[in-house]
């Protein structure tokens, strides 16, 4: 008999359950219950049978145990080359065992697998570039997370996150009303300096539909206003949807495929409703990965693409700079040494590395690459949901050492991080290691140096003095 209240295989689908779960401080009771959570081996076996196909089986089978993936992993390097952090080991000892034993595993094993899947891997997929066979252990780990979620072996914050998406269609408790209200509020806030600023909500047939990260609405509404200002300066015909405005997916991190599908469908529905020419996604990495790269598959779109073409914010910025929609005041370019952190989710897994470089060529005088960079860049430690999981905080902090050393080696004190989770991780990195760096999204930097067209400036009142 399962008498668990919080820790069950069932996802959180209603507000009462979510509130109850939130009241369980740091998941104390939740994790306690997890020790008693029974593994439904029959269900696990069936799920593996249904979803574990030749690609994954072959990967698990042909791995030659050569260990070439070891040095690819930021966690392996950060943990003084602990053999248990070798990507292949992490996957063979967890997913490998589940598949081999056809789901016949016990509670202790599942909890171990959870520790590995969320505490030792950010699903950055870097190891896939170092395996001669092309085994993508990030993909395997994501798949393992799905299996674990189906059985209820998932970190407390991930369970909450997945529940948020199921209830609010957002990673935080931000309703449609809250969101629209926040947009209106920002217009009021900025009207003095940007008198003609608008955030058009639900405008049909716009060129751009802009979607964000719920944390912007919840805590950092200035981010939305900054985006609005830049779109206005660039003269874009843009809009935000009232529903389907949230791009992120903690459900993806949680392995909650059903929740992830619900989330991305809300965005695709907005596309269908508003018929924009393009969608632009805010400076967030996993949001792009979830909604643009993986999302179409969850939603069953045969094209493998979002209903309308989607650009990540860095693509939009690069193109706007190239076409002259945004013009940079040469005197205001960044003079100090500056480096750029590649977000795994849209660089390695999205092919957008060239745009970051292009942007830097416009805005920075002393741009310094990290080594390695681009597709081969290391994860900041904040991927895969690790930023928010209390249980694995220590592991996450340790895992950041590689990024710390990479940044230090550039000599730059300013790190550009066009991704919410990377931003947070680099912030945390400074908090933990105190290496004296600053970090920033692109938007505030661009606003400092972009040339504002006359018609955007506030009209000076007669006889007003500065």
């Amino acid at each position: 008999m399962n008498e668990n209240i919080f820790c069950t295989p069932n996802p959180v689908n209603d507000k009462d359950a979510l509130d109850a779960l939130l009241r369980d401080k740091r998941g104390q009771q939740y994790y306690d219950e997890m020790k008693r959570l029974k593994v439904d081996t029959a269900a696990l076996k069936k799920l593996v049978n249904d979803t574990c196909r030749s690609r994954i089986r072959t990967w698990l089978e042909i791995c030659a145990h050569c260990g070439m993936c070891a040095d690819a992993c930021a966690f392996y390097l950060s943990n003084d080359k602990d053999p248990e952090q070798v990507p292949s080991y992490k996957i063979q000892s967890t997913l490998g065992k589940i598949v081999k034993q056809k789901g016949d595993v016990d509670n202790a094993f599942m909890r171990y697998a959870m520790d590995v899947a969320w505490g030792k891997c950010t699903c950055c997929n870097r190891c896939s570039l170092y395996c001669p066979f092309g085994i993508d252990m990030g993909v395997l780990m994501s798949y393992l997370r799905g299996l674990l979620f189906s059985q209820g072996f998932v970190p407390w914050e991930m369970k909450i996150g997945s529940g948020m998406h199921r209830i609010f269609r957002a990673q935080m408790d931000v309703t449609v009303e809250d969101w629209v209200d926040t947009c209106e509020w920002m217009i009021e806030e900025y009207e003095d300096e940007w008198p003609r600023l608008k955030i058009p909500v639900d405008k049909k047939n716009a060129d751009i539909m802009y979607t964000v990260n719920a944390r912007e609405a919840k805590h950092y509404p200035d981010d939305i206003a900054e985006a609005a200002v830049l779109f206005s300066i660039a003269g874009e015909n843009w809009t935000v949807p009232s529903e389907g405005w949230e791009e992120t997916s903690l459900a993806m991190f949680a392995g909650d495929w059903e929740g992830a599908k619900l989330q991305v469908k809300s965005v695709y529905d907005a596309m269908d409703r508003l018929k924009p020419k393009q969608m632009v996604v805010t400076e967030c990495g996993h949001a792009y990965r979830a909604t643009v790269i993986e999302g179409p598959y969850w939603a069953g779109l045969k094209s493998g693409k979002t209903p309308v073409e989607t650009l990540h914010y860095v693509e939009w910025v690069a193109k706007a700079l190239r076409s002259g929609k945004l013009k940079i005041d040469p005197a205001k370019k960044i003079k100090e040494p500056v480096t750029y952190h590649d977000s795994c989710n849209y660089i390695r897994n999205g092919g957008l590395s060239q745009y970051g470089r292009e942007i830097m060529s416009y805005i920075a005088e002393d741009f310094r690459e990290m080594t390695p960079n681009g597709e081969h860049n290391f994860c900041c430690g904040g991927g895969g949901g690790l930023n928010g999981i209390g249980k694995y905080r220590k592991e996450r902090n340790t895992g950041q050492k590689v990024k710390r050393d990479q940044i230090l080696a550039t000599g730059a004190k300013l790190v550009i991080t066009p991704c919410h989770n990377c931003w947070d991780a680099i912030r945390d990195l400074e908090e933990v290691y105190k290496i004296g760096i600053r970090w920033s999204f692109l938007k505030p930097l661009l606003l400092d140096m972009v040339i504002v067209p006359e018609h955007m400036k506030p009209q000076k009142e007669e006889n007003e003095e500065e």
Partner: protein
Amino acid sequence: MYNFLTGPMAWFSFLIFFMGILIRSFLYIKGLDSNIDRVTYRVNTSFGVKEAVRSIFSWLLPFSTRGWRTQPLMTTLFFVFHVSLLTSTIFLNAHNMILQERWGFSIITIPNVVSDYLTIAVLVTACLLIIRRIKLPHVKILTKPSDYFILLVSIAPFLTGFLAFHQFGNYTFWMLTHIISGELLLIVIPFTKLSHSFLFFFSRAQLGMDYGIKRGGMKHQKGMTW
């Protein structure tokens, strides 16, 4: 004995070998699923094929990927082992003489002395690979008995062939063990990790398509930096 081994048994092992490869390849492709793998193999296929080819060839050429470059010792070991193993087998004078005898054709061959060196290279690199497994903690933790088994199965024909050719001790004995171990190798290839000999191409192609179609291939200017 010799007749059996070079007759029905040889046919049988080649049959298993080729059928195994065919069936496993077929099953691999059949098991690919656009939705579950989340790669549209049939949409934007050209992007996928292009990256699949790059994915395979980048990894077939020594030091052409960052992975190969960052681990030069392993890369050298790896390529010396595999290249020696394949060339010394396929282009061996004696093997081609058998082909000529049985089916009336042969392909180009390499001088026996070269084959000798290549065989020694196979044996030496295999030993180094074993030492690597024992000595390096990150490889040791991955290593299972089966890894030693398949390595031994793989090099057995080379050791026995070498001993037979140079007539150490009993030629017939070494020759028979050479044939047996060779046939054993053919038979186990499709059913063990040695299936990587052909599944490598599928796995690499799949990841190539994954990156080529879905994960940025259509946005890259120059394609994936392998």
